[in-house]
């Protein structure tokens, strides 16, 4: 590059100062000001692009989610009902009641149990499906994807009543079992099993999809290297695919755990009054018994529980995962 090229910057503005009239002077200042604002704006926008992009969502969530949640927590701490009469003032009575009563505690444990079992079964079923999506041909992948997403297209009430007709005493399942020679087939309807089956059915895609993504990102040659080094297909799964797909599994399991812990319609229809979950309990307290503070306390506990378990779980996985990419350049 020659010297002339280097110093070839736009000419300075000074030559026309004083020569031009006042109006043009004003126009020039205006132009400079707008340019200055523009520069400041682009500087700000450059630095805060990320914040600006998420601002609408954050605002929306603050107004329509965060504020109601805080109101709810506030309510659970400032009032409680004694014999149907609301008493104002700071109190931990609602929370004490939740843990003091054997009934409520059993419901809490059942909710956690069903959420964990749903996550576990969903994860077990998800692996073969996710591998089929990630590693099968395009036709198979599409077929599996559509099949597992299908339950989400059906309204939850319709879907639950569908399960009811399958699982009840004279339902399809009992009929098939009888045909197979089972003399006294178990009735699953209105048990935890019914809730579990329906939850796994509908929440399966939430673990399959992130898992398929994670498995798809595993380099095929890494699997091939393992096979050449002497690993059977099962060892390849255990030693390569399973550990490398953990981040996807963690996302999926978190989603399924959260969704099934907070499920309301499915347990209500399929679990009935014999095995209510926290969702049903909240509904009863708020809509039937009009005990809003206690309902708020249960809701707060549910949210805290789901949030805490997700944070712990994801933290564990991300710490493990960070090690694999440590010092990557």
């Amino acid at each position: 590059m020659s010297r002339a090229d280097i110093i070839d910057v736009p000419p300075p503005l000074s030559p026309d100062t004083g020569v031009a009239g006042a109006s043009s002077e004003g126009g020039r200042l205006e132009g400079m000001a707008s340019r200055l604002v523009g520069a400041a704006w682009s500087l700000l926008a450059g630095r805060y692009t990320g914040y600006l992009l998420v601002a609408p969502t954050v605002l929306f969530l603050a107004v329509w989610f965060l504020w109601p949640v805080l109101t709810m927590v506030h309510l659970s701490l400032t009032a409680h009902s004694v014999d149907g009469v609301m008493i104002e003032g700071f109190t931990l009575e609602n929370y004490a009641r939740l843990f003091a009563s054997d009934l409520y505690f059993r419901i809490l444990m059942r909710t956690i149990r069903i959420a964990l079992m749903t996550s576990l079964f969903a994860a077990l079923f998800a692996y073969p499906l996710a591998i089929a999506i990630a590693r099968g041909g395009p036709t198979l992948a599409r077929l599996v994807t559509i099949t597992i997403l299908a339950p989400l297209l059906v309204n939850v009430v319709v879907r639950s009543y569908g399960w009811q007709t399958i699982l009840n005493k004279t339902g399809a399942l009992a009929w098939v079992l009888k045909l197979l020679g089972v003399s006294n087939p178990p009735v699953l309807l209105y048990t935890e099993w019914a809730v579990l089956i329906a939850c796994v059915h509908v929440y399966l895609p939430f673990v399959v999809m992130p898992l398929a993504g994670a498995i798809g990102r595993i380099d095929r040659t890494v699997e091939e290297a393992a096979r050449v080094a002497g690993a059977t297909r099962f060892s390849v799964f255990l030693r390569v695919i399973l550990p490398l797909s953990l981040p996807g599994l963690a996302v999926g399991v978190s989603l399924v755990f959260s969704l099934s812990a907070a499920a309301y319609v499915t347990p209500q229809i399929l679990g009935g009054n014999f095995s209510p979950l926290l969702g049903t309990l909240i509904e009863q307290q708020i809509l039937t018994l009009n005990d809003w503070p206690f309902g708020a306390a249960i809701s707060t506990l549910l949210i805290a529980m789901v949030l805490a378990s997700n944070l712990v779980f994801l933290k564990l996985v991300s710490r493990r995962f960070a090690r694999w990419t440590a010092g990557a350049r």
Partner: protein
Amino acid sequence: MATSNGADVCLTGICRSYGDVQVVRDVNLKASGGEILALLGPSGCGKTTTLRMVAGLVQPSAGDITIDGASVTGLPVHRRNLGMLFQNYALFPHLTVLENVAFGLSMRGVSRAETAERARQALALVRLTGFEDRMPAALSGGQQQRVAMARAIVYRPRVLLLDEPFGALDKKLREEMQIELRQLCNELGLTTILVTHDQEEALILADQIAVMRGGRIEQVAAARVIYERPVSHFVADFIGTSNFLPAAIVEKMGGRTVLKSPQGAIFVSTVPNDFSAQDRVAVAIRPESVRLTAGSAPAAANTLSGTIRRSLFKGQILSIWMEFAAGAELVVSVPIEEAGARSPEPGETWTARWSEERTLVVREQ
């Protein structure tokens, strides 16, 4: 070549097609114990598919592969006892360097103590002692390549397979690794099959080179033979560079082949060939085989006079283009030391000569 305990690998009539596309057609190859065989060819010539069939990652549509005389065609990948290096190294990102190397041993049920011991030895062999607890992502490309190498040799495989192993390394590091790999393979006496599109890499590493084209083997021979006596236009063009002069065989006698170009020039070759007067052939001349002298010369065998069109300085050599007939150019490489004070300038008339031993007769397509 090492005296060796390496296995003999034999491919007989190997074919592979995907739908209607034949990727590998009737490949017959043999790598004897301890030998390094390179499959060389442009992308899409079927060399990688052939290697993957030896590994068992692809099943041949026809043909048989034997290792030490026993067929492995139906044997699953994990039971073939092979070592393989991949272009992208394919290390296990979630395992430490030591765990990566130990993988094959733990798959073979070797005891923990022995596994650690042998993995450390393999790491020492590739000069990576002290890196045991690093993660692969924290290593440079060359180091990752060495880990992959240690992982592949630690369980004493029967055959080592290399799929473009140095493709991702920069030139300098690549050359270092090539020499290191060659030493290691010779030390271990491992039969090695290497896939590459880089002719230089094949020449440096391989004892035998199989040049592939369109799924077929074009020529198999020792590295030096391939370079000095290519059988076809394709091989001569792919390995090194050549001038191709159309010519027809006029007569063959006593190891000498006499050819005549359409313009009437006579070429004489003493390089053995199997062609007869009916074959479509060409004369191939390496640029470095040609000697230039100033001025024109009377017509003679292996002599062409013409006008210098261009010359290009390439560092150690000077490349010169001489037009010896309308639209026909000969490329000549002149070492800088030999160019001297009087180097050919564009527009001048010069004469090119080459010896009968440097006149190659190759099959035309």
